[in-house]
């Protein structure tokens, strides 16, 4: 009989207790410790991995509950291991040094994410006003598929040029205030920026103010979505992970 599987939420210092609450599938949280570090886990009932939406919510809530009072290295959503022994022998013990180093490096830090999305009408007006070449193509277009495609391609190129420029501008304001940052690829064609920033808790207010400044300076051409504090998802990794 194989060991009962456990769901793994994240790694903490062994001195941090598991929250007195439940995780995925309403299973109580507990901690599995080895060598001064510990994983927050809960049992997985049944045979089917519980990866539905409610599980994603629960995963997030567990991480935040720990983050409220401690530093946690979050696991990516969906990691299930083959029992407590596997948590020790496959996660904690072989990766002990890098996990310890990241717990120390990320102590007292949180992740704040910022996504900037262009408002469609202001963006297109801006482009049409500043690109005579595109205006000409648009004015001459009969609306045929090929002409629409060409027009759209030119606009997409202009958007990309603005994206690069705006990314540089926004980062020039925010990056100096962060200990680290990560850029993600834009997820749709009107996304101007998608970034995660690593911020010491004591600097959150200053970073808030800087994001407000960015919002004001962009006016109505861009909408900012600013979320956090989150556990440092974007700033953890294991070297030998595939």
């Amino acid at each position, binding site marked *: 009989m194989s060991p009962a599987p456990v769901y793994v939420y994240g790694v903490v210092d062994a001195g941090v207790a598991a929250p007195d609450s439940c995780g995925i599938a309403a299973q109580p949280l507990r901690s599995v410790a080895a060598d001064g570090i510990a994983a927050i886990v809960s049992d997985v009932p049944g045979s089917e991995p519980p990866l539905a*939406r409610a599980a*994603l919510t629960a995963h997030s809530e567990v991480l935040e509950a720990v983050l409220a009072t401690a530093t946690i290295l979050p696991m990516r959503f969906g990691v299930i291991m083959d029992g407590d022994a596997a948590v020790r022998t496959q996660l904690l013990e072989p990766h002990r040094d890098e996990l310890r180093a990241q717990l120390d490096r990320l102590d007292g830090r949180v992740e704040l994410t910022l996504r900037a999305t262009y408002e469609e009408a202001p963006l297109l007006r801006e482009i049409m006003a500043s690109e005579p070449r595109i205006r000409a193509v648009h004015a001459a277009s009969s609306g045929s598929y090929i002409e629409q495609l060409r027009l759209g391609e030119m606009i997409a190129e202009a958007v990309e040029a603005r994206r690069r420029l705006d990314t540089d501008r926004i980062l020039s304001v925010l990056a100096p205030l962060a200990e680290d940052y990560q850029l993600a*690829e834009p*997820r*749709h*064609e009107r996304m101007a920026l998608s970034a995660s920033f690593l911020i010491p808790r004591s600097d959150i207010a200053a970073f808030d103010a800087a994001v*407000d400044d960015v*919002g004001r300076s962009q006016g109505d051409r861009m909408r900012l979505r600013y979320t956090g504090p989150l556990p440092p998802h974007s700033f953890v990794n294991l070297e030998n992970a595939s």
Partner: protein
Amino acid sequence: MSPMTLHREAGAGYVQRGGAGLYEIVDVLLDKGLVIDVFVRVALVGIELLTIDARIVIASVDTYLRFAEAVNRLDLLQESSDENLPELMSDMTEGGSENKTKGVLEGAKESLFGSGDDDDKDKDSEDEGSGGSASSRRSSSSSRGSGSSSRSSGATSRSSSSSGSRSRSGSRSSSSRGRANS
């Protein structure tokens, strides 16, 4: 969500503060964080497929046509009378940002979470920037039990509503709010 996590939204000189919906952090939950090896990641297969599907190619025919259609709509806007302009503008901002150039990821998320859910409503209302109550947006996570398995068709089918058929009167037809998986 715990009370400490805030979703803040800035734009047009204002900042809204409210709770972070799952929608706002699904990217980091699915894409970021520690993973240890292939063996363990087997548990992630379905989710990873979802996020890979969701990465759109920004330089694509779909994108080009959406931009071209959006510029054509812009013409309608500019040709309309001054009297109608404010109404049309707000209509375009709302309708356009919701369906016209909505990214594939949103479609995929809706598939993951089911359409018409709390988070999506949160997002829509925040997109419209109505400057509403800042503190009451957090929705109860206990009501989010809907299924997650209907993602297969969601990632690439969102463009059905982008027919450029918005009327000059600016009324928001129900079809303009079509969702990827509906």
